[in-house]
């Protein structure tokens, strides 16, 4: 008996070693590698670029702690937190979007469309303006806001069976309610506060600091592991709750667990940078088309999200020289176009997405 055995089938290779076996999809693997390289490149360029340009080679050396003091300071203290936050938030948005889009079978049911980002933003803005919960910190507040919104949507729309449309409709309603609440808070706020809040709402990496990196990194790590563990159930939940139950998924635990994990991912990310719009919607859809999958692939969506955020940030920094444009402006413009494209396409098929 051969120790390692490979069986080729269209689009996939079964790998078997003794009693263990796995399935590899070459295209998926190649796309993920490509996305990882692209994100790493964007990450390095993000570090090298700025008022004090640093050659890419020096960036890489500085990452290993080699270089003069000025370079090390600029990289480690000023630029690394920003780039890391971008990388992590992008990944969180991408994976969260993929989870929601898969669970609802609807690309429009991504967390930024159904009000999770707005809910989490409202909680943070309320705290900023009304000055309560200062001890909790933005992370906890954003998390609270996002999860509370998710629970609300679940209660209102999800219970009676999963139809993507219901969730999108209820979500859009809730999203607008949160947005108006945020506007009301803005009107109440004084000029300086309003300025701060507005920056944050548009979504910006400008204030990114090591204080943001550490909790975010932990959140992405822990939630990422949770997502991987839950992903086997996700594959079966795609077939609907009835079939999933028949195939041995504890649906009553798995479905809420997946929703809470996805909501937590998007909330932590929103708390760190503000709602960077459209990344959670577009990243999974782009990843899906790149990999040729029928649904958003999780890992590739995360990588695409990272690349989108870092790439958009690079554009945001360059587009008006001397001004640090919030990244949300770029993703908003890009994502809006993508959404239009998606809608025209969905209408043509007649499935509404």
């Amino acid at each position, binding site marked *: 008996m051969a120790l390692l055995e490979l069986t080729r089938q269209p689009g996939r290779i079964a790998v*078997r070693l003794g009693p263990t*076996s796995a399935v590899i999809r070459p295209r998926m693997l190649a796309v993920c590698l490509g996305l990882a390289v692209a994100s790493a490149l964007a990450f390095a360029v993000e570090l090298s670029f700025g008022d004090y340009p640093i050659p890419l080679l020096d960036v890489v050396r500085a990452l290993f702690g080699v270089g003069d003091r000025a370079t090390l300071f600029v990289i480690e203290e000023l630029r690394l937190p920003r780039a890391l936050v971008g990388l992590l938030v992008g990944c969180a948005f991408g994976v969260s979007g993929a989870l929601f889009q898969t669970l609802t079978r609807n690309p429009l049911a991504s967390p930024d469309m159904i009000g999770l980002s707005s809910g989490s933003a409202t909680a943070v803005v309320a705290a900023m303006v009304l000055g309560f919960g200062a001890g909790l910190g933005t992370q906890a507040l954003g998390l609270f806001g996002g999860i509370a919104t998710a629970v609300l949507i679940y209660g209102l729309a999800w219970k009676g069976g999963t139809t993507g449309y219901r969730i999108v409709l209820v979500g859009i309603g809730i999203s607008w309610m949160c947005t108006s609440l945020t506007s009301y808070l803005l009107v109440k706020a004084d000029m300086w506060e309003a300025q701060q809040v507005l920056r944050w709402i548009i979504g910006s990496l400008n204030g990114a600091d090591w204080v943001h990196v550490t909790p975010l990194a932990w959140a992405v790590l822990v939630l990422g592991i949770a997502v991987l563990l839950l992903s086997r159930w996700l594959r079966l939940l795609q077939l609907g709750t009835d079939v999933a139950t*028949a195939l041995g998924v504890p649906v009553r635990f798995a479905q809420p667990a997946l929703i809470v994990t996805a909501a937590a991912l998007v909330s932590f990310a929103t708390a760190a940078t503000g709602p960077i719009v459209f990344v959670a919607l577009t990243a999974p859809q782009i990843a899906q088309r790149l990999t040729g999958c029928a649904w958003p692939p999780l890992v590739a969506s995360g990588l695409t999200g990272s690349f989108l955020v870092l790439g958009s940030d690079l554009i945001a920094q360059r587009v008006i020289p001397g001004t640090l444009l919030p990244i949300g402006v770029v993703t908003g413009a890009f994502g809006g176009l993508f959404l239009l494209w998606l809608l025209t396409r969905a209408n043509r098929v007649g499935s509404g997405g």
Partner: protein
Amino acid sequence: MRPEIAPTLRAEGLAVSYGDRSIITDLDLVVPPGKISVIVGANASGKSTLLRSLARLLSPAAGQVCLDGESIHAMPTRELARMVGLLPQSPVAPEGMTVIDLVGRGRAPHQSWWRQWSHSDEETVRHALELTSMLDLAERPVDELSGGQRQRAWIAMALAQDTDILLLDEPTTFLDMAHQIEVLDLVMDLNRTRGRTVMMVLHDLNQACRYADHIVAMKSGRIVAQGPPADLLTAELVDEVFDVRCCVVTDPVSGTPLVIPIGRHHEPRNVARHPFPIH
């Protein structure tokens, strides 16, 4: 290995409701092990509800469903998924999912992190595709198939699950005559050669009589009558269950009861009143 004695699924004092609408009250049923049973009844008589309860998709309001004496709601759901399979009435696959992806998911209860696609997974899936004549369509997206092909893809998924007990909700709907017979013959093969217990919902009484060892007739959430088709199927029963006048004669091919509905515009002629003459 499969145990020598087929496991027995049994409902005891079962009551099921949707919200506060009670559908089934105090129902007792044994799914005869190693046999083919068919549930018949009018639309909305609770056939799907019963089948879904037997597959733990619905929690009983009272009573319980047991597999070999153990309540299915107390069993690990994955373990149960290796013994009881279900094909719901109108399942929907996500847009773009291919037949092979769908059928492959039927193997989930047998897989784990370190055993994602074993030889037996591959063998069983191929066999399921072969039995449902879906091999040639394996790489096609399910939503681009005809209604009948789609139905066969789902049946293949249920077969890939490789369970001792198979619950099928209207497996022949959408199928043309040839494929209806093919699916029913397949069910019979599974039962006769592999000892699988099958309980399915069929709307065609004549097919039910032909393929069932045991018929369960339902009306308004209750079991009106049950037993072997030859003893059970009478014009009176059909009238009671479906509110349809009919003649029951002998199927010239299988020797089982053959139900001929009368309707308002016809009256039975003399020849049909008597059992079908067999020469």
